[in-house]
């Protein structure tokens, strides 16, 4: 790679002041100018930099050269004044004009244009003399740009598309309104101004110099253009305005200039009713706020009132609560007493049953001895009497045992374990072997599932059901399991429909038959099964048709 050493930029740091924030430069007006912040200007001479600080304004936003002049715009900044300034032959001259938009344009033949924010502009040319000449734009709008064509005509393009031409050849050149279009807002006052009319020699009284028409309507003559322009109120839509000069011996271009308008609806906030409506809404809002405030006060009052009521009720409630607590304490006391008395009752039943057993055991025992050893010495009636004593004593023993079982159901809870039902029943058959063999019955044991429960009590349930089946005349007994229920089925005396509901109540006995049964057995069974979260029920096809007792456990 070849490097042309001569064209490599040289580092000029020692010569170029960089510490003063140079913002832009201008090449012209006899030098190379560097503009920095706060009005700092440096001029490059052949032998170095010259610092020039004595500017009329402080903050130069734009500078443009014109021949040996330097024109610049300075903003109102840091206490300085805004305007247009000129540097010529070591002299700074400020022109305190209106605020400029900061735009400058070169025209033909060293003409400069400086646009103003309001739509006017300044021309700096040979013709303008020693100071810039102000020109009013046809529309009070921001100038977008100004150009001068080759023929010397000046084209001013405003915001929204308006084009205004200043003719350079016509006399007077600035009276012409050229075809163009502009967007205006509905209700805008359209000021069409005529520049240069002062050059016209006023005509004799009553002779009109100009005519204008709107939307191709009739021409209206007027003598002098009004200073504020033509007041035209436009409706939304497209319109046209034509103006022509009347040539009465003057060399005036009488062709009409036309300007078209596109009138847009006024934005909401600029409509006439906007502020009244906004004001009304505001007033209404204030009113509402006021009402709300009043409502709040009212609500606050109600809230306070409510709080009072709540407090009162709370007090009532507290009082009630105190009463309730004392009642609860009383109830607890009563319950405690009840439990104690229940406990006493249980103990009483236990002692009674035990103490009652003692003589019964003796009665049965001695009756047994009599029947075993002394029947020869006794009459048939005597033997019968002793048998009855023994039988009744045994029955009494059973009643007492049942009572005891029932009374202990609620107070004594045994842990639930897995029960091997089949083994349980086989053991039960052994235990009841004598009873079974006496009755001469056939017992079938079907397949049974293991369950969880209180083994002692489940045994008692089976014992009771089996005992019932034996006592109520069954000759064939089946024990099995079907549809989640255990069953003990017999072909004994059966149960009538009327009785089937009553049998599980304490002390009910179906029939006063002379059997070894105790009515409390089924009540005991029901309670045990209920404690095992199950159900117990009986089914029978009627008297003489046998019965089946079912029970379930752990339904939940």
């Amino acid at each position, binding site marked *: 790679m070849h490097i042309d050493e001569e064209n490599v930029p040289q580092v000029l740091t020692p010569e170029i002041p960089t510490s003063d924030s140079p913002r832009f430069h201008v090449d012209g007006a006899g030098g190379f100018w560097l503009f920095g912040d706060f009005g700092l200007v440096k001029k490059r001479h052949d032998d170095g930099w010259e610092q020039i600080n004595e500017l009329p304004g402080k903050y130069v936003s734009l500078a443009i050269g014109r021949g040996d002049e330097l024109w610049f715009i300075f903003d109102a900044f840091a206490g300085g004044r805004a305007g247009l300034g000129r540097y010529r032959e070591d002299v700074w001259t400020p022109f305190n004009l209106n605020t400029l938009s900061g735009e400058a344009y070169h025209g033909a033949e060293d003409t400069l244009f400086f646009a103003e924010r309001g739509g006017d502009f300044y021309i700096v040319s040979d013709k303008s003399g020693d100071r810039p000449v102000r020109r009013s734009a046809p529309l009070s709008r921001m100038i977008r740009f100004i150009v001068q064509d080759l023929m010397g005509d000046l084209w001013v393009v405003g915001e929204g598309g308006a084009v205004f031409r200043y003719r350079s050849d016509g006399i007077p050149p600035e009276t012409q309104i050229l075809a163009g279009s502009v967007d205006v807002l509905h209700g805008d006052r359209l000021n069409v101004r005529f520049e240069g009319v002062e050059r016209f020699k006023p005509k004799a009284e009553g002779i009109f110099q100009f005519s204008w028409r709107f939307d191709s309507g009739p021409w209206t003559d007027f003598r002098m253009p009004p200073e504020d322009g033509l007041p035209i109120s436009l409706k939304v839509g497209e319109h046209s305005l034509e103006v022509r000069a009347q040539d009465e011996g003057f060399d005036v271009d009488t062709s009409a200039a036309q300007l078209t308008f596109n009138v847009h609806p006024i934005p909401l906030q600029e409509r006439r009713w906007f502020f009244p409506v906004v004001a009304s809404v505001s007033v209404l809002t204030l009113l509402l706020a006021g009402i709300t405030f009043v409502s709040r006060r009212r609500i606050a009052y109600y809230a306070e009132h409510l709080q009072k009521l709540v407090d009162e009720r709370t007090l009532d409630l507290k009082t009630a609560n105190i009463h309730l607590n004392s009642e609860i304490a009383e109830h607890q006391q009563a319950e405690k007493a009840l439990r104690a008395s229940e406990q006493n009752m249980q103990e009483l039943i*236990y002692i009674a*049953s*035990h103490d009652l*057993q*003692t*003589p019964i*055991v*003796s009665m*049965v*025992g*001695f009756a*047994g*001895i009599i029947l075993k050893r002394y029947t020869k010495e006794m009459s048939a009636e005597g033997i019968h009497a002793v048998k009855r004593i023994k039988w009744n004593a*045994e029955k009494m*023993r059973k009643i007492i*045992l049942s009572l*005891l*079982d029932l009374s*202990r159901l609620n107070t*004594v809870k*045994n842990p639930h374990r897995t029960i091997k039902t089949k083994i349980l029943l086989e053991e039960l058959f052994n235990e009841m072997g*004598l009873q079974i063999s006496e009755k001469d019955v056939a017992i079938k044991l079907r397949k049974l599932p293991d369950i969880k429960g209180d083994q*002692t009590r489940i045994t008692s349930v089976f014992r009771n059901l089996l005992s019932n089946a034996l006592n109520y005349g069954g000759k064939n007994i089946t024990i099995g399991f079907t549809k989640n229920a255990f069953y003990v089925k017999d072909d004994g005396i059966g149960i009538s429909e009327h009785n089937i509901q009553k049998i599980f109540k304490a002390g009910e006995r179906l029939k006063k038959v002379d059997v070894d049964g105790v009515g409390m057995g089924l009540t005991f069974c029901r309670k045990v099964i209920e404690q095992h979260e199950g159900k117990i029920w009986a089914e029978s096809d009627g008297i003489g048709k046998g019965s089946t007792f079912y029970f379930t456990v752990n339904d939940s």
Partner: protein
Amino acid sequence: MQKSKLDILLLVEDEPDHAHLIMDVLTEHGHLANQIIWVKDGREAVDYVLRKGKNKGRNSSRPGLILLDIKMPELDGFDVLKILKADDDVKTIPIVMLTTTRNSEDVEKALALGANDYISKPVEWEAFVKTVGELGKYWAFISDANLAK
């Protein structure tokens, strides 16, 4: 060789009628024991077995089986059970509890305290004798086995 007959059977029973009936049936089936000793309460039972009080210096051999009633005044069956099973010399003597009720808690308590078995007080005398006979033989055998050690 196993013994089939107990030398001494100790009956602890506060109820004279029951004692009478039990001894009657045991005597009737005389093959169970050579001698049946009846004591009327728990205190006497302990004294007899441990050779205390009026039984101090008793020469007879110790009982081969004890039939012990549960519900007795003063020292009841459980108390006697505790005392005897805590004594190393006599704890091997089999003790069979006599219950009046079918109260499973009593039975469980007795077994937990070291009772070797239990039987319900007789209503069915044949069954009672059969049970005592079987238990007696069994415990006599166990007892001999222990003494032989």
